[in-house]
């Protein structure tokens, strides 16, 4: 889309520089457009409404942040920054530390990205570069349909299909080959970081695949043709010409998936085991921030407990914002505003 927009923009610029009768030069159009502002009453009203709409979202952002902060104040006072790195979560003794949830959230999301990115990029590259034309639409449609399945259905499917499958067919061979690594220590009970990460991966594949596909479709055909003309095979053309051209957009697609994985609640809480423990083993149960809030909020009877959960929400909010900020910096660094999709992000 963006590439088309850019092309159309340069085309119209080329057009306006030509002295065509009856069409005023571009600069005068802009002057007239500016001078119209504030003149007409309906224009003024229209402008105010649009300004209000545009401001509503940033205001909402600030309000959410403020409410989270104010509600988290008692816990912030009580525990200070150690809330972030202590790992006891004891509602009876009123001692709260969120480290296991923060680690669990990051680990499960990165595991999901690790699994989902090759899969989703593979789907996108196949659909844009290699698949026969008749196959492209149906497969793309089915992949995107995965995004329409409700979270709780993924959770149920995970409990009744994924976990038994992992238990019988995935974990035993994994342990046989990589059992010596710290990542596969302990007994596999089913509900675990691995199960949570895999279900997250399946849930974010459609998002990454759909956006990546749009990005790759927007890479101009001339890029491919140039690579092929240099004697590249189709795979070499994809690797050396198409992917680098779209890299900013592809990173954006991955970040979109990561953002969703960080905040996903229902399916994860049904599969991750909900245990306040820090460990690197994928076979052990873990916890995520979103799951803890969803689980414990309704029965949080004391003020400090309530407030500690708000602080977890605040941390999750900050983590999400930081991840998105890092992604933006990454895209600017990589793309420098030139590659496909960088403007949209």
């Amino acid at each position, binding site marked *: 889309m963006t590439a088309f927009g850019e092309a159309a923009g340069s085309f119209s610029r080329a057009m306006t520089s030509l002295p065509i009768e009856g069409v005023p030069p571009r600069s005068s159009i802009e002057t007239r457009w500016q001078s119209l502002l504030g003149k007409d009453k309906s224009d003024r009203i229209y402008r105010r409404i649009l300004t209000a709409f545009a401001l509503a979202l940033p205001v909402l952002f600030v309000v959410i942040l403020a409410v989270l902060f104010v509600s988290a104040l008692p816990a912030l006072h009580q525990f200070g920054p150690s809330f972030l790195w202590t790992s006891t979560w004891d509602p009876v003794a009123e001692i709260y530390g969120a480290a296991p949830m923060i680690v669990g959230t990051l680990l499960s999301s990165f595991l999901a990205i690790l699994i989902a990115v090759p899969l989703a990029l593979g789907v996108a590259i196949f659909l844009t570069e290699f698949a026969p034309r008749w196959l492209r639409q149906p497969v793309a449609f089915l992949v995107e349909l995965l995004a329409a399945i409700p979270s709780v259905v993924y959770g149920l499917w995970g409990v009744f299909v994924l976990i038994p499958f992992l238990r019988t067919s995935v974990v035993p061979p994994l342990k046989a080959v990589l059992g010596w690594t710290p990542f596969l220590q302990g007994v596999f009970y089913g509900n675990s970081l691995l199960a949570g990460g895999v279900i997250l991966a399946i849930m974010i594949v459609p998002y990454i695949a759909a956006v990546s596909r749009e990005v790759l479709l927007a890479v101009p055909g001339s890029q491919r043709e140039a690579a092929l003309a240099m004697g590249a095979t189709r795979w070499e053309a994809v690797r050396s010409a198409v992917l680098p051209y779209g890299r900013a957009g592809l990173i954006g697609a991955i970040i979109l998936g990561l953002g969703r994985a960080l905040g996903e609640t229902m399916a994860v809480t049904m599969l991750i085991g909900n245990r306040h423990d820090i460990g690197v083993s994928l076979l052990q149960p873990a916890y995520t921030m979103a799951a803890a809030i969803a689980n414990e909020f309704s*029965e949080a009877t004391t003020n400090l407990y309530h407030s500690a959960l708000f602080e977890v929400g605040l941390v999750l909010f900050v983590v999400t914002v930081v991840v998105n900020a890092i992604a933006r910096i990454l895209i600017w660094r990589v793309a420098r505003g030139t590659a496909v999709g960088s403007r949209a992000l």
Partner: protein
Amino acid sequence: MKTTRYLALAALLGAAVPAAAQVQINGAGATFPNIIYQDWMLTYNQTHADVKLNYQSIGSGGGIRQFSDGTVDFGASDAPMSDSAIAAIQGNVLHIPTVMGAVVIIYNLQGVTQAVKFTPDVIADIFLGKVTKWNDARLASVNPGVALPATDIIVVHRADGSGTSFAFTDYLSKVSPEWQQKVGKGPSVNWPVGLGGRGSEGVSNTVSQTPGAIGYVELAYATSNKIQFGTVRNSSGNWITPTLEAVTAAAAGAMKDMGPNTDFRVSITNSSGAQAYPISTFTWLLLHKSYSDTAKARALVQFVWWAEAEGQAKAPQLGYAPLPKELHPWIGARLKSITAAGRPVLKAE
């Protein structure tokens, strides 16, 4: 033309409003008694059309919060309010038990068809992570003839805060000093071992999908879903299969410890009745001792009175254990003590 139509509409609307003033009463709280509360309110409204009752099952914690903030007229909770929470509202609360429930032990043992028997200390040690194998000598000795496998015991507990967890941990705190000291009781606690399942269905699904798992759910949930559960030895030394009668017996057994002047904030776990199922619990309505709105207070207390008297008959068919009959005079005395604008709401008969 248009005006007459509006007039007709207004007349119609006017006719739909009953002559007597409507009383709207809102409540919120525990999810466990939601089914019977909704049923009671519906039934009560059929004979008292002027009283509109509304109950939202947002969880005990939310119920206590909204009740304390005064956003609802009554609360409901599966766990009694703490002393500090009561002090925060100047003691203006009465705990009124309505029905009872029980917590049962469920497990996933292939090839085991008879109910497994559990002693209190074994349950505590399993959930403390000290008994880790199904063929542990202490389990095997009370289960002769049951082919207990040599597999790991996988503990499954509630991950969400819940009255079920409160009753269960309250029981464990009574039967195990170590549990009392290390973990304690509450709607959510710092579990020493195990996986967390979300809701009763989360626990029962995880147990049913995990060989060697053990968990706990509400009795009504287990019976309506036909899940097998274990037998527990009570404080009199009898093996008790959880039934509604055994739960009612637990409250009856606990009555002599309570005394007629109780505030009902008592736990009836590990009660002393010979036929009492030990992991039983009340669920409570939270009412204010004094209200400001007389009409509202009167309608609410009359409804609760009705629920405690006639409403109890509905309990067994909905999966709840009714309160023992002997408890009714005590509850009645408490309801009569409620005042509005300085005067008793109910007339002393």
